[in-house]
């Protein structure tokens, strides 16, 4: 952890319900500090543009970056703040060319150290690691394992996301491991009350840690 206070990196359920999700997200964003919302879509129907449009005002009001999973063109067309791609230098350069330097291009590590470092050098805005399951990136010859967040944060200024959801009790060790961004579990989206309660509780815990 080198870049100040850790922040929340919210991740929507896949294909969020346009009827209910915007209000739940507004409750989350209004409840405390949130860095970003990653919107996950498994199909890019017309409805996704409407959903993004209905979420952007909350993001703007509360200074939460709205990031679209996997589809740089959807990000470009919808005016979202950025895209979250799989770790690949080619996909990164395509996304960067489409979105320009002002918008966010972040990547999810595929477990390859080489790919992560290449993206770090290319100028990726963040890199996310499945910190509890990605052993390859953290293991060294000889078998000793290293948390990928720790490995990364010692090498790069580029912030990193603990992409495996973190229970509130595990915030301190995750931050200690090097996470700049923390992802709460998806259960937070079950209602507006639950969403705002989660954001408050996680922020309190982050403050207590640092």
């Amino acid at each position, binding site marked *: 952890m080198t870049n100040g206070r850790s922040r929340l990196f919210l991740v929507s359920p896949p294909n969020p319900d346009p009827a209910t999700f915007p209000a739940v997200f507004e409750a989350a964003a209004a409840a405390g500090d949130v860095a970003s919302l990653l919107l996950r879509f498994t199909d890019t129907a017309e409805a996704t543009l409407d959903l993004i449009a209905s979420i952007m005002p909350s993001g703007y009001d509360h200074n939460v970056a709205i990031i679209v999973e*996997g*589809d*740089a*063109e959807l990000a*470009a*067309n919808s005016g979202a703040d950025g895209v979250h*791609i799989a770790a*690949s*230098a*080619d*996909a*990164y*350069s*395509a*996304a960067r*060319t*489409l979105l320009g330097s002002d918008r966010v291009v972040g990547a999810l590590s*595929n477990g*390859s*150290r*080489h790919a992560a470092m*290449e993206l770090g050098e290319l100028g990726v805005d963040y890199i996310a690691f499945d910190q509890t399951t990605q*052993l*390859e990136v953290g*293991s*060294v*010859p*000889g*078998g000793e394992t290293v948390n990928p967040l720790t490995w990364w944060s010692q090498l790069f200024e580029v912030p990193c996301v603990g992409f495996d959801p973190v229970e509130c009790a595990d915030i301190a060790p995750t931050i200690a491991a090097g996470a700049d961004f923390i992802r709460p579990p998806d259960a937070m989206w079950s209602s507006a009350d639950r969403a705002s309660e989660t954001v408050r509780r996680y922020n309190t815990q982050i403050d207590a840690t640092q």
Partner: protein
Amino acid sequence: MQHSSRLKLLFAALLTAVLVFCGTVPPASANYDGAFEAYVARDYDTAFRLAHDAANAGDARAQTMLGSLYAQGRGVARNKQEAIRWYETASGQGHAGADFELALLYLDGSSGEADLARAIEFFTRAAEKNHAVAQFNLALIYAGADGRQPNWEKTHEWLARSAEQGFAEAQYNLGVLYAQGKGVEENQVTSAHWIGLAAQQGLSDAALDYGFMVFRGQGVQKNEQLGARWLLFAAEKGNVVAQNRMARLYRAGVAVQTDPVEAAKWHILAREGGRVDDNLDEFLETLTPEQRQSADERVNAWRTQFAAQAAEN
């Protein structure tokens, strides 16, 4: 899109270590993990030593890696027979990566005689285990890459399975099948969908075609600015058709700000790549000496950066 849409055979050069060795999940093996780490770090002596131990202990991934180390002469003296022996051992355990390697050896004949039937047999084995590159290569063989009569239905079937797994080359070629109505009913929207996915993965041929589709609104929402961004990406990746098109767009100020120096830069690069354009040659003559000098400087800077990227890959 006829200028660039075509089926292209893809051989081992494109494979990463991950694609080759991963696959079916064997019992955990610390030696294999260490060997993999060492391989990725290009420490082939260590990779060979650890893979050898794990292979002898029965780890199919390690057996495939060992075969690959013997085949390439990395960490050990090159030995095709040993390579084949280890691939066959891993293949016998059902390892798709080993099936794939054997298929390649039969295809190019480096194992002795080229044997297309056996290559197809091993590609099929790997493809049925969902090996995306094997599925892709099998599709291309059915497309007549070996000079036989094409079977477009089979080509479509295997391209679709590979594309569904996210393999960019397969996504692109599947999009081409839909554009041309081969093995499947012509459908420009489905074509744009698949070619767009391949473009997003950074495949420059796909970005070029997709850029034209977006620019014209062919199978996808028309958006000249976004289309131009895709063409710019393909141009940056060294595609001479895209470079020529960016030169024209910058010259005319269509979808981008008019910029004579950028127009000249892209035209000079496209011309070096063999893409002639008399109109743009005439345009070069109209530049001021300062503009021409700036363009030449940008050409040199682009070349330097492109060469550095090529060296890294």
